[in-house]
């Protein structure tokens, strides 16, 4: 009897466990079934193109892989002085654009956060360039920058100032200033080309609205009690900003810093519309260089390799920022 009871218990346990396994299998299958559309889309449109790009980068590709050359395209990039030059141009663009953009964005956000008249209007005004088509606005700015037909030079000449070539000027801005005093600066002190500065002005005009919107959200998250307490202790406006606003806004600033650096390293559309990388190579950023290698030089494999190199550079920069700037972020 006892033996039978044990057997019964065994059978019941086995049944229960197989039911549990069946249910688990059903749950897992359902899970994968629900995930399937997303996974398929990811594999087809994200993962496969990455690996296919990797394959192309290892080929002498002339609409098909005519020769598998391994890492030769990557090695070629290291010997190509134009690649280094394009990285230098990209870094220059980033080094100028990021602080200007974030600094102006923070300043304007701080002003708009105060109780000023027409606050909503200014918020919309600053955000509008961000939602405007880049190609369209870049084309308009190109015309504003036109040497002898543009509005900017028209204003400058009315003011008795010289007209500039703007997007067509590859001379450094410091050298241009020094020209007024007939001083010839050494090459390293020329500064960024005027064409580059013109691009930075446009970039700032477009993206500052986005930065303002994010900074405003960050400012709204800072508890007002902290300001009240500090004011009770006699803190002035600058002290409040320095010791409360800026530290507590650091997660927002850090987020924008990472996005802006990545954005400047990937920048393409407006540069292509406004200068196509010129004059000569003054604004040929790495993205522009890759595009030219692909669509003008038919170097499919090489441009694919350059894309992976640019990706590696951006990844390294992001990790670097995470390690060093991330430490200074105050989350509480």
């Amino acid at each position, binding site marked *: 009897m006892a033996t039978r009871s044990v057997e019964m218990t065994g059978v019941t346990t086995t049944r229960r466990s197989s039911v549990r396994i069946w249910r688990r299998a059903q749950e897992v299958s359902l899970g994968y079934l629900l995930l399937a559309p997303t996974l398929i889309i990811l594999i087809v449109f994200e993962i496969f193109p990455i690996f296919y790009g990797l394959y192309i980068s290892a080929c002498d590709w*002339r*609409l*098909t892989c*005519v*020769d598998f050359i391994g890492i030769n395209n990557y090695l070629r990039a290291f010997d190509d002085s134009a690649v280094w030059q394009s990285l230098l141009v990209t870094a220059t663009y980033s080094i100028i654009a990021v602080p200007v953009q974030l600094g102006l964005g923070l300043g304007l956000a701080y002003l708009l956060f105060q109780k000023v008249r027409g606050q909503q209007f200014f918020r919309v005004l600053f955000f509008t360039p961000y939602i405007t088509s880049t190609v369209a606005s870049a*084309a308009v700015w*190109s*015309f504003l920058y*036109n*040497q*002898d*037909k543009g509005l900017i030079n028209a204003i400058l000449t009315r003011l008795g100032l010289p007209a500039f*070539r703007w*997007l*067509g*000027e*590859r001379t450094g801005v410091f050298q241009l200033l020094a020209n007024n005093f007939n001083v010839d600066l050494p090459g390293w002190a020329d500064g960024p080309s005027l064409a580059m500065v013109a691009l930075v002005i446009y970039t700032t005009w477009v993206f500052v609205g986005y930065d303002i919107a994010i900074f405003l959200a960050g400012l709204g998250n800072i508890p007002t009690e902290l300001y009240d307490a500090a004011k009770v202790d006699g803190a002035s406006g600058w002290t409040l900003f320095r010791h409360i606003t800026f530290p507590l806004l650091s997660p927002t600033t850090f987020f924008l810093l990472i996005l802006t650096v990545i954005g400047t390293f990937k920048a393409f559309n407006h540069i292509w*519309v*406004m*200068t*196509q*990388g*010129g*004059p*000569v*190579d003054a604004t040929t950023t790495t993205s522009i260089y890759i595009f*030219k290698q692909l*669509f*003008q*030089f*038919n*170097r499919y494999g090489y441009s694919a390799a350059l894309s992976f190199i640019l990706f590696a550079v951006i990844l390294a920069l992001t990790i670097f920022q995470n390690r060093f700037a991330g430490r200074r972020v105050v989350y509480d």
Partner: protein
Amino acid sequence: MRTFKFVSLIALVILALVAVSCAAPTPEPTKPPAPTAVPATKAPAAEPTKAPAQPTTAPATAAPKPTEAPKPVTVTNPPTSPEMVDAIDLMGKKVTVTYWHQRPQAQQELLQSMLDEFNKTNPYGITAKAEIAGASYPDVYTKVSAAIQASQPPEMSVAYQNQAAFYRGSNAVVNIDPFLKSKKYGLSEADAKDYVQAFLDTDQNPQFKNERLGFPTQRSAEVMYVNMDWLKKLGYNEIPKDWKTWEEAACKAADPATKKYGWAFRHDASNFASQVFSRGGRILAADGQSYAFNSQAGVDTLAMIQRMFKNKCAVEIPVAERNGEQTRFGNGEVLFVFASSSGMSFYQDSVAKGAKFAWDISLLPQSGAKPAMNLYGASASIYKTTPEKELAAWLVIKFLGEKTQTAKWAAATGYLPVRQSAKQDVIDTLKKNPAWGPVADSYAKIFDWVQYSMIESPVAGYDPVRDNIDKKMMTLVLTDFTVDPKKLLDDAVKEANQILKENAPK
């Protein structure tokens, strides 16, 4: 037993004769696509040079033996001889041909209306449709390149000679000569003679042993637009014919304070090429093996441009100022512009809406041993699909090249017709068109200059060379008055030769 053997032998002979007589007259041209199983990349590469030689010898050897049944022709993909093309049977196949181009909507409609006519009249049931594949030649090039990689090219598209050469490097585009020379589907001798020979010559590619990688459906040329009223005011009774007088007139016209200039510098390598030709130089060496624009003609061209900018005789039209040279010319702000003849109706419109002055076109000033004019214009290329589709595409091209069609197209677009017999029809139509009016006479002049045609470079990889010429070399001379033109040219040619080597057929 003997009787049985004899009867068997007779039966076999009869059977063989029946089999041969059944097979010989119709060698099943539609089935032979089976040879497409031959590795696609090998077939065209291995045979292209031999194939064109066959058409002339094949009929001659076959003719003297009328009793002998002709050997069945195996059609390869693409067909490499006129006989192979003759052997293709399109009847009842209902082939569809898609033609990718970059023309604007109005011209797409005109093109489609012409193709509708073809669809109605062709006896093979071919359906041709035109599709806008982008707003410019580079757009079409990008799309075609992607389509080739996806193994889904259109049956035909517009392509510049150097772009066709690039596609040919991947065996994606076919040699049109076998179709052109086909007895059944090709051009008759009279038709072939009616085509402007200079136009036909441009599509024979030296990089691929003169294979014909495209066929002209239109052409244009780089000409000089001149503000005649202004020129007369400056004291010139005729358009300058040499570079020295031309530069002198341009500098006389220039007045930077009022934003008036002698010459509008348009960013385009063809601008440089046209000037080099007019000074007796070349862009690509005659054998197609190296670039040659660092000759004295190139140096003189760059030196003159540099001098003109230094003396503020010329104005640069920024890349972003689209058609700026045309607008400024129409407003009476520039005396001379070098641009495509296909833009004549737009110039006429621009002047009519602008400063309303008398203007004309002319050859660029010349200083070479003989006159030269930069001839350009994309052709129609046929992509490797199936022999039937390739043949159908050829028939579409042939139709578009007929006198009626080419005249209609030229009159509507301002391009040159590809047939000599169409010239008068086009001029007559343009004269009746108020948008053209007196300019039709100027248009007529281009036909007299066609004999001086030169082409820039039909080899693969010319696009980056053009980019270097314009974006680097030309930009440098007009901004840096100390740079040495000869050194710039030597560096540019060195880089161009590297690109040529890189793009050479493998």
